[in-house]
């Protein structure tokens, strides 16, 4: 959005250009405004961008003078920034703004009758989830804009299979203005409401454009995988379809400590009941419920027969919060249950074993040393199972959960404590509900390539996609061949994918008007992301090396990552001095603090006032 408190600032253009090539989105947001007043006015430029995106550039042009953002190592940027702060100026430019977004904000004084142009560029690799890629753009111009335009160009060498665009702010009048088209490799979405069409009512000066604009699409999959090679870099997309599901063995670890009292427990139960509806009959499952101690629903994993599911639902309905948070014993009990099931061969030999761990707090009893808990879980799992963590509410120690999961082939996810928390949990389950492959390894000719991103994966879930990128070091290589091995529902599967290096590169030359180095940037983006992720769970002696590599790439490719900052300099009207501002990347751990408004000292897990609680057995009170 671009706005000012008065009507003196006229926004004559907001242009959102998005170019997606092979899932890699390059977004340019440009706003142009003029100050019609006879005195200077402050103008703010706000952009909500996805947390997964990296800012790559920002510039302001004020009266023909360009003020560029410069991306630097965090420490170096901080020194420059601190100088400005010591003069009592400025603030950070990026802050957490929502579940999926962070907000970039710049405010600047614009002289009378002067023009200003803001341009922000950010890039991200779109992730395939439940059979589609999704790119969202927050739309909130706050004022009517002479020329408002969203253009999304998609270029997918595999061919586009479907394309859709939706806006949460769409009315029947606006809907026909969304133009969607696709043919072969190219797709296009545009949305250009006139100034009158933006009005919230016919004579209003307020805009109805406020919400998310989401583009979804998928690509054709004639083969399970596809390799693309451009300018010496390759990217391998692997997403086999029509495979039989591998049976799952799931342990749900549920925190029922007293801090879960109220809505959290209610929503957890709701989500579990829904999830139990979706568990397949060939799956096995069990519950590990913990408070001060651990309660295991059944002695061993049970098959998801209708009778067992009904009993499980009854058990879930009768869960009530109590006691403390004994995370260590709960994790070890769950791992031990899976070990026993595999040892006793009571679960299918070819099956995916998952632990879904849900908590809202930090350990308050049993083993409370976080490092020790992580070590215990790692040593007990030994790479055999995937551990997914769902962190509920603001009091949760998210970095702890993230490390715990990343060390054990899983991921951590935040569950936001709002009315749709149950839906968020179900949504997460849907993502991991359908494993079709296990122990996937993508191999490339060792002497011809280097700098390959992660190429071994514990599970492949239907509707997702594995992406591996790397650099081709052999200049004479004509064909790049990848061998993929994976364990399927019945046997070991082997796939071979290849791409002709020269021809592919020539073919892609036609697309280079988009941005020729996209494969290289995609590789850099993916590498940085994975290095940052590895850093979370790496031992101290490896951390330095991983950080150095991620930093070097962030600087080389000009990405604002958690290791770099962008310094933006803007003119300071009164003193004539320039003012430095800084754009940082928000990371999850920081976010929880930034969003937390607690001022009172809090130790241990968080607690919000009960809105619902189970009937107490007895009490004494008076009114």
């Amino acid at each position, binding site marked *: 959005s671009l706005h000012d408190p008065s009507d003196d600032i006229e926004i004559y253009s907001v242009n959102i250009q998005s170019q997606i090539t092979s899932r890699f989105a390059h977004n340019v947001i440009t706003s142009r405004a003029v100050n019609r007043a006879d005195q200077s006015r402050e103008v703010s430029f706000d952009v909500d961008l996805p947390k997964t995106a990296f800012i790559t550039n920002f510039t302001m042009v004020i009266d023909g003078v360009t003020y560029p953002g410069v991306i630097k190592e965090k420490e170096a940027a901080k020194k420059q920034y601190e100088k400005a702060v010591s003069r009592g100026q400025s603030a950070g430019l990026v802050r957490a703004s929502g579940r999926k977004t962070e907000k970039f904000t710049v405010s600047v004084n614009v002289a009378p009758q002067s023009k200003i142009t803001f341009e922000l560029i950010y890039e991200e690799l779109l992730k395939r989830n439940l059979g589609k890629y999704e790119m969202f753009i927050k739309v909130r111009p706050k004022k009517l804009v002479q020329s408002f335009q969203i253009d999304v160009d998609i270029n997918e060498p595999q061919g586009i299979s479907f394309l859709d665009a939706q806006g949460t702010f769409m009315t029947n009048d606006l809907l026909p203005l969304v133009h969607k088209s696709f043919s072969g490799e190219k797709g296009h979405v545009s949305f250009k409401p006139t100034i009158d069409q933006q009005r919230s009512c016919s004579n209003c000066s307020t805009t109805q454009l406020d919400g998310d604009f989401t583009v979804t699409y998928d690509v054709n999959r004639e083969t399970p995988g596809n390799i693309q090679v451009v300018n010496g870099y390759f990217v391998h997309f692997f997403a086999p379809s029509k495979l039989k599901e591998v049976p799952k063995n799931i342990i749900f670890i549920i925190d029922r*400590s*007293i*801090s879960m*009292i109220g809505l959290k427990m209610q929503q957890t139960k709701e989500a579990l009941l829904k999830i139990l509806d979706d568990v397949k009959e060939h799956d096995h499952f069990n519950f590990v419920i913990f*408070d*001060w*101690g651990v309660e295991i629903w059944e002695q061993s994993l049970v098959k998801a027969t209708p009778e067992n599911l009904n009993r499980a639902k009854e058990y879930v309905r009768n869960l*009530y*919060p*109590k*006691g*403390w948070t004994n995370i260590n014993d709960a994790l070890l009990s769950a791992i031990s249950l899976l070990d026993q099931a595999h040892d006793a061969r009571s679960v299918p030999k070819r099956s995916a074993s998952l632990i879904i761990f849900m908590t809202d707090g930090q350990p*308050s*009893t049993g083993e409370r040393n976080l490092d020790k808990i992580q070590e215990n879980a790692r040593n007990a799992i030994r790479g055999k199972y995937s551990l997914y963590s769902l962190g509920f509410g603001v009091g949760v120690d998210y970095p702890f959960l993230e490390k715990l999961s990343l060390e054990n082939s899983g991921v951590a996810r935040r569950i936001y404590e709002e009315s749709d928390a149950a839906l968020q949990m179900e949504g997460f389950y849907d993502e991991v509900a359908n494993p079709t492959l296990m122990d996937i390894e993508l191999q490339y000719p060792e002497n011809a390539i280097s700098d390959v991103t992660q190429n071994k994966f514990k599970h492949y879930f239907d509707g997702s996609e594995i992406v591996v990128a790397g650099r081709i070091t052999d200049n004479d290589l004509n064909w790049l061949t990848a061998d993929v091995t994976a364990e399927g529902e019945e046997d070991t599967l082997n796939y071979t994918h290849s791409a002709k290096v020269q021809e592919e590169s020539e073919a892609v030359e036609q697309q280079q008007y988009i941005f020729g180095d996209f494969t290289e940037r995609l590789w850099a983006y993916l590498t940085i992301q994975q290095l940052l992720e590895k850093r979370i769970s790496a031992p101290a002696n490896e951390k330095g090396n991983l950080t150095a590599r991620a930093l070097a790439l962030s600087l080389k490719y000009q990405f604002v990552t958690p290791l770099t900052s962008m310094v933006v300099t803007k003119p300071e009207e009164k003193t004539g001095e320039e003012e430095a501002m800084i754009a940082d990347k928000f990371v999850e751990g920081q976010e929880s603090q930034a969003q937390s408004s*607690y*001022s*009172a*000292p*809090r*130790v*241990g*897990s*968080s*607690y919000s*006032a*009960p*809105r*619902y*609680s*189970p*009937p*107490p*057995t*007895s*009490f*004494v*009170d*008076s*009114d």
Partner: protein
Amino acid sequence: PHFIIRVPEKEDALCFNIQETPGAVLNLISDPELGIAVNGELIGKKEPGNVAPTETYFGKIGIVITKLDVRLEVTAQGVTVLSGARNVALTWQEDVTLTEEGFNLQVNKMENALLSMGDGATFIIVLHQFRKGDPLHRDFLGFYTLDSHRFSERVHGLLGQFFHGVDYEISNIHKTADPEKPDASMRVKDSLLTVTRGWQKDYSKDLQSGSRVQCWFVHNNGQGLIDGTHTDYIVPDLF
């Protein structure tokens, strides 16, 4: 204070009042096996000239966990935790969570305090406040238990004796002058009592207005329902 005993098997509740003079300390829970005791000290309304007000409330709750060497004193002013030689004083003015080996205490600003103990039992102490300068009322406390089945078979006290259930039979429900409050006969613990249908309020979920709990009211300080008489539960001091 109003005592309410939920009887989930009958989807019903029993209630009684205990009226004693301000300053009396009543034993609510005493579990020698777990080493947990809860006592409450009564306060009365500010009624000038009335030395023995008819209505009393709990102004102070004392909780002793002997195995952990922990004592908690909860008043309308705050919560004091005495753990060994350590003394932590918390007020109701802020959210605080205190986690110690063996127990977890969460004070929720101006609302309630949750005490969760290692054996799984949980207490909620609700703070009832009146406006400053209220001529009649004083701030007082409500005391709620969760997971009371965690207590040992030897648990006793005005609340504790009901933790492992109470068996009773209701018969002969008949109308009274107040159509909403029929009387009935209740057979309990070898006594036949006349009880009255009524309701009390549960403030554990909603501090502002509470929720109604329908119950059979036992008259005369719970005589016949409780073991012995209510004076048997008067103890010399809070700890």
